[in-house]
């Protein structure tokens, strides 16, 4: 990895998801590819959900962050669908960050441990939540509603 590429990856690792401000796009597994050329830097990101309204903001934030370390190179950030994004791409520290934010990390099971009290006595309240990637859940133990990251997997 060249010095510039490392700097670009580091810059991307500081770009937050505006709807989940504790997580960076790197932790969420959005960064698919970084290509550094002599006069251009091309970054390929994957959208979590195709209809996510935060995509434009993420792209602009990423372009701005990369431009600062690109040493005068032209910067292009684009979203690609060449590989489907799945929740398996969220890193371990990304999952931990979600938990501290009160969003249960994605699991392929009905009951998610409550991010507040840890109880497994929880249910799905509604499969659709405030953003395309979240669902509403309820903890029967501490009697708090909480959000869970929607599992996304190919089938």
């Amino acid at each position, binding site marked *: 990895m060249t010095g510039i590429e490392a700097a670009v990856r580091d810059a991307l690792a500081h770009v937050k998801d505006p709807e989940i401000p504790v997580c960076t796009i790197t932790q969420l597994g959005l960064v698919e590819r970084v290509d550094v050329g002599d006069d251009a830097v091309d970054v390929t990101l994957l959208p979590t959900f*195709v209809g996510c309204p935060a995509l434009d903001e993420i792209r602009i934030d990423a372009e701005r962050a990369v431009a600062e370390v690109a040493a005068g190179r032209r910067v292009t950030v684009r979203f690609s*669908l060449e590989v489907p994004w799945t929740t398996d791409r969220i890193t371990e520290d990304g999952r931990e960050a979600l938990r501290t934010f009160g969003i249960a990390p994605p699991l392929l099971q009905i009951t998610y441990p409550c991010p507040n009290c840890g109880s497994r006595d929880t249910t799905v309240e509604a*499969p*659709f939540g405030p953003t395309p990637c979240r669902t509403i859940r309820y903890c029967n133990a501490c009697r708090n509603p909480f959000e869970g990251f929607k599992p996304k997997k190919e089938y």
Partner: protein
Amino acid sequence: MSSDARLGLLLAIADDELVIGHRLSEWTGWVPYVEEDLAMSSIAQDEIGHARALYEIAATINGGTPDDLALGRAMADYTHAVICERPNRDYAYTAARHYLYDTADAVRLEALTSSTFKELAELVRVLRIEERYHLDHARTWFRRLASGPVEARQRFSDALADALPEAMTIFEPLPDEDALIADGTLPKPGEEMLAAWLDVVGHDLEEVGLERVMEADAEAPVGEVLPTSSGASEVADESPRPLRVPGLERRDGRWVHTAGFSGAGGRSGHHSEDFAPLWEEMTALHRAHPGARW
């Protein structure tokens, strides 16, 4: 392959998603309880996002912008199926159309995963993962309303019977279908996808004892579509032909489509009287402030 045929396919699917997404978004703030309000709003947002992704590919073919394609076309240039533009009416109709549309969309998307049109096949692979949530939601309501109580079951099955003939026109062949089939852009003809979808719907209805929905219109052609008042002027030299939605018959344990699609429907830009007010509202901002950004 003429790129026009591919553009036509992209716009037909994108228009379906945009227009049904617009209708679903009308439920925002009006559903009797908040979880379902979130569901309707979220599905609407997904469908409009899917439309955007399709318009983005289309824009690379015709050189325009996705916004111009989505909101800057004349009414008669939209090629969505008429079922998408119908008003929401009540929750029975909304749920019936949601079920019929999303099961049809699933058949269409599955076929398109093997399209030779690489950008479309890639997008479809992602869309299918997301549409699974819509299907689960639609099937949950299907089972809940079909299992009663009596009024719910009655109103839901009436709504299904009303919506079914128009939902079949999701598979009305595109004007360029032969060219799309020839080069593998469209891996299956509309009639073949329709047959696969009728199997799914017929099976689901029989499971809940509502097969009368399929029988209701087996004899007489129903679902005549009125031309739009303003759309007709867009196609001045063509007198608007009513869309005849043909019957269904049960043969060898399967529901089959017997009559072909005569006349022209949504895929040729002929819409119902319900499209004009929707188009006016949906495109109002774009027309009043061309190029507006926010």
